[in-house]
């Protein structure tokens, strides 16, 4: 396996130019949203809205102006996190989602049958159905470009190097240096989102300013299995056992019927019923 590769996206230097969004759409031949007709969301300069099946990079605009004397305008280029422990990969029943030799997570469109299981399994709300081929789709970290030794389109296009691409280990070192630098400069609420303690580490991780919720990021994302194996199955089984016990109690007065006896009794009952109906 090749070295794990990933993104380090630094909010502190993003200028919200959306070159990453455009480069991603262009390289991956993704259609324009809403047929190219721009609908204003009313949310700052963000008229893309969310990551989905046709938007694999999304620049979110965060306006922090509660205290206007310290007002900030933050831009955050969101993307699939390519989790080391990926919820989408865990639940995918078809095997369409796989881990590449670069430790990234990719959906194979020719295998996906659009069951949608991966959509709610992703704690980061990254995946959606692509309306063109009706399969689940998301960022591939430009798997095709990486195989050709190229860097992903978004990182290539980013003019401020807010999106950095490279071996994850190197990016993590770089991010810690940058974090320390920012904190030295007084940006005390800067933090790294996606260290190794989060889902085994996010291969696309972020330097953010302010709480993760500002950026639509969950504080403690969880794997589907961490929930399913913690009680759900056991409680379901207990409920099932109770159902059987209730059945056993309810029918306890019934003794075994022999075949002949059953047939005779059924016949007698049917005759009785037909007589009743006839008299009515």
């Amino acid at each position, binding site marked *: 396996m090749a070295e794990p590769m990933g993104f380090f996206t630094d909010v502190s230097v993003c200028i919200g130019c959306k070159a990453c969004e455009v480069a991603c759409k262009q390289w991956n031949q993704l259609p324009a949203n809403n047929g190219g007709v721009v609908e204003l969301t009313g949310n700052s300069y963000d008229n893309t*809205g969310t990551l*989905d099946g046709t938007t694999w990079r999304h620049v979110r605009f965060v306006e922090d102006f509660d205290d206007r004397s310290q007002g900030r305008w933050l831009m955050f280029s969101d993307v699939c996190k390519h989790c080391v422990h990926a919820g989408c990969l*865990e*639940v*995918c*029943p*078809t*095997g*369409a989602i796989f881990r590449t030799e670069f430790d990234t997570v990719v959906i194979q469109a*020719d*295998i*996906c*049958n*659009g*069951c*949608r*299981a991966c*959509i*709610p399994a*992703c704690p980061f*709300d990254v995946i*959606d*159905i692509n309306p063109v081929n*009706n*399969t689940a789709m998301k960022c591939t970290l430009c798997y095709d470009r990486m195989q050709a030794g190229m860097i992903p389109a978004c990182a290539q296009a980013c003019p401020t190097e807010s999106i950095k691409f490279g071996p994850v280990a190197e990016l993590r070192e770089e991010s810690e240096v940058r974090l320390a630098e920012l904190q030295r400069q007084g940006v005390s609420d800067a933090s790294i989102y996606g260290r190794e303690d989060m889902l085994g580490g996010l291969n696309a991780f972020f330097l953010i300013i302010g709480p993760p*919720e500002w950026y*639509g990021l*969950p504080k403690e994302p*969880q794997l*589907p*299995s961490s*929930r*399913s194996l*913690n009680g*759900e*199955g056991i*409680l*379901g*089984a207990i*409920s*099932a056992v*109770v*159902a*059987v016990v*209730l*059945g*056993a109690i*309810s*029918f306890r*007065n*019934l*003794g*075994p*019927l022999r075949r002949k006896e*059953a047939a005779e*009794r*059924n016949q007698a*009952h*049917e005759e009785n*019923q037909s007589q009743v109906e006839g008299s009515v």
Partner: protein
Amino acid sequence: MLLREVPIGWNWEVYVEMFAAGVAAGAFLIAMILELYGRGRSPIARVAHLITLPLVLVATALLVYKLERSERFWHMVIQSENIPLPILKWWSPISIGSWGLMIFSAFATISFVDALVSRGYLSLGPWNQNSTLHGGRYGIFFAIPSIIAALFVAGYSGALLSVTAVAGWEDTVFIAPFFVGVSVATGAAALLLIDSIRKLTPPDEVEGLTRFSTLSVIWQLLLFIVLAISLGGAISHFVTSARTILAFTLAIIMALAALPLLYFKLSTSDQVRLGTGATLVLISGFLFRYAVVMGPQHEIE
């Protein structure tokens, strides 16, 4: 938990499928319990054998229809790149659920054919009217794995919801137990409703079924209370629209209203009373499914 921005898209096909599969599982469970009591050829059991397969087929058809690429439905159980090798992820509720439903379908098919054989509509060599599976010496061996398969189908869809990262669904581990309760209650109600129309079942079996129906409705309501308590403040994610509030309210009222209709001892007007009670339980179970599946999704949309 942050609210999701991308709709999940599990709509009417999903809750109707869960309802149909639940009724099938509940009815089949009753037939298999009767089998254990040596009543595998009773009218109730035969009705259960006859309705389970069609309901499972409806549920499966809805699941296939719901896939964005329905023609690839077989990718759920076969490795599309290594045909015919199977694919199974036991830790993924949707993967193991597909297998569970398929295995349950196999049991349901055998019982359906056996019901036809026992009525003399079909004869397959040694498998004939005088030698059927149900009520015969091998019925009990069939019943035990069938009960496990039925109960699995009754509950797995609840686990499927709980393992998502969706506010409301992810906040409790009691959806699967509750869905087992709903399945059993609606399965019993379906058999009671059919019996109230056909009037073929001997009184002792109707009494047993009525008792089971009553107990399962009580069990279902208790599980609903536990589910609501386990959610705490997160229950707000389920009561997000007038539709889901109305659905929950009606479901509870109908289940409670059905209890006296099902519980009281049999009398001359039994069939209408039982039929009414069973209908209320079925509608109640459907509304519960609707509200649990759609509540958190209405919030997203």
